[in-house]
């Protein structure tokens, strides 16, 4: 049965979003391995409950910042599925016109301020976005996603302190998937963990089971509620596990099989299915999602690459290379 305070519809909707992310990731990893998608793919399979749970309590006006593993964040915030697929394929119509690819998916129309190829790169951007919004008198909040590896980079602490100093409505979401690339994060992170670091900078928060979308959603709701009431920044530490390698071609041999097996048993999709308690309905959603993603993949495969001349657009207006080229 769905949790008491969530309607069945809403829970099905959360499940559908999570499933969409999963199938999207798996499809893109396969397409990358098949040579259809250039560059790298960082799959968020196994972590879907985090962005879906958090974004469920955000409005379209709210903003998010993301990471190199950003497809799920974008899809959870409402980015267009077809255009995201087109972007990963580097085709015309992609979210970024093919200029960004997987690591730079963004959809500003829904408040998704961009994936980021730099670990912790989104953190200063998130606090600044909150500061800018305040200048306009906006009530919007900002959710800032980052990994467990990012908590060791300086901008993490700078951003926490910054948000607390100015009392900015930023929800810091640590998506703790256990690994920093090929390294178990426990070997490079000292102390009691991300939440303690946040508290030491004056940012209160919670730790939550990142595989349980209902729990993530509930915690996010509490924290964002406090933020909207003027409480300043909050922190949400979500424990989860990365199902794939760091990038699509990483066999992740550094990982213990037993850990992976244990994690797979706690697959967030399985957890949610259990909470839904309606396997047939879930199966139906699965089928719809798979069809939808097959459809957009087909579109992406057939779409043209952007014309070469577009490489010179959108660099800058003044001193533009287009001007130089035309000389």
């Amino acid at each position: 049965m769905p949790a008491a305070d969530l309607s069945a519809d809403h829970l099905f909707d959360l499940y559908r979003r999570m499933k969409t992310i999963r199938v999207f990731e798996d499809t893109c990893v396969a397409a990358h391995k098949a040579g259809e998608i250039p560059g790298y793919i960082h799959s968020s399979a196994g972590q879907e409950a985090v962005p879906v749970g958090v974004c469920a309590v955000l409005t379209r006006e709210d903003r998010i910042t993301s990471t190199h593993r950003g497809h799920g964040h974008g899809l959870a915030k409402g980015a267009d599925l077809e255009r995201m697929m087109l972007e990963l394929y580097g085709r015309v119509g992609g979210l970024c016109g093919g200029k960004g690819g997987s690591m730079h998916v963004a959809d500003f129309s829904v408040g998704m301020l961009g994936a980021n190829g730099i670990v912790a790169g989104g953190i200063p951007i998130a606090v600044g976005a909150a500061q800018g919004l305040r200048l306009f008198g906006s009530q919007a909040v900002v959710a800032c996603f980052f990994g467990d590896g990012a908590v060791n980079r300086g901008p993490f602490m700078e951003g926490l302190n910054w948000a607390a100093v100015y009392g900015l409505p930023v929800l810091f979401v640590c998506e703790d998937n256990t690994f920093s690339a090929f390294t178990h994060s426990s070997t490079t992170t000292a102390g009691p963990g991300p939440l303690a670091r946040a508290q030491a900078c004056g940012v209160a928060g919670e730790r939550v089971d990142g595989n349980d979308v209902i729990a993530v959603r509930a915690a996010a709701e509490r924290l964002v509620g406090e933020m909207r009431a003027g409480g300043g920044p909050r922190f949400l530490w979500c424990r989860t596990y990365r199902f794939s390698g760091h990038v699509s071609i990483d066999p992740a041999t550094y990982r213990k099989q037993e850990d992976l097996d244990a994690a797979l048993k706690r697959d967030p999709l399985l957890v949610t299915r259990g909470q839904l308690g309606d396997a047939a309905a879930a199966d139906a959603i699965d089928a719809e999602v798979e069809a939808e993603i097959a459809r957009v993949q087909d579109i992406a495969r057939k779409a043209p690459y952007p014309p070469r001349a577009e490489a010179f657009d959108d660099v800058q207006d003044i001193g533009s290379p287009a001007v130089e080229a035309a000389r």
Partner: protein
Amino acid sequence: MSNVITMGEVAARTLADEMRRDPTIWVLGEDVQAGGIFAQYKGLFQEFGAARVVNTPIAESTIMGAGLGAALVGTRPVIEMRIADFVMPAIDELVNQIAKVRYMFGGQARASVVVRVPHGLHPGSAAQHSQVIESWFVNVPGLVVAAPSTALDLAGLLRTALRCDDPVVFFEPKAMFKNVADMLGDWPAIPFGKAERRREGKDVTIVSWAQAMPAAIEAAAALSADGVEADLLDLRTLWPWDSEAVLASAARTGRALVVQEGVGASGFGAEVAVTIAEHSAARVRRLASPRIPVPFAPTLEDVCFIRPGMIVAAAKEMVAG
């Protein structure tokens, strides 16, 4: 009625003007409420308050990155970096993020920020407080780079920077902030990419900018006294830079001397001089600081300065040779 004020005050007044015009402009940086270390924010806190003149923690990465975030939601931050040397902790945010967001995201985003960077030699400041790093940002697509040398140019280019949608790295001549000038009239916006002719001449082109300009002006006068007429151009902006004016001058004189403060090896002077060499038959030569960190003792530091005499000598050699 005279209006004798420092270059720092000119900067502050220009910014105040623009902040009155556009409520989305605001300032963030260390000690900006105190007016900035060169008085270039003097009075702004008093007029615009803590919401628009934001004192920050000592956290350059986040000063730069937060400026970007605020730009992405539609404000126009002025990002104060104190001195060029302190940009370094913020280069990731400037180069990997600000310069690229518009492009990476296919035009969805704009980073309309002005990054203010006092730069250059300042006596007694030593290796970590004296650097000139202009060429790095000329090398970075997405960035506009300005480097005025006079109060009027600083005012006019700052105005343009605050009205333009591209991110601008705005280098300010830090040893000249206390210079006073009689700033009569108003200080109109100046377009990027237009050099200013500081002296007209037919014998040799001298191209310079920023803190090397005073020496270049003095040298040009001395050359004239000796019968050598220099065509002296102050670039004022480094990207875009006025290659048209420079090439036209070099074509007329047949000789171009490029004079810059800061390390010559891969300095911006190289880009100017090589462009002349590629596109004209003019002979080229550079004058710049040696490739050494800036030392402290006055006798050592002296080797980093471009003195008028050096320019005179180099120009005469070119004219003779």
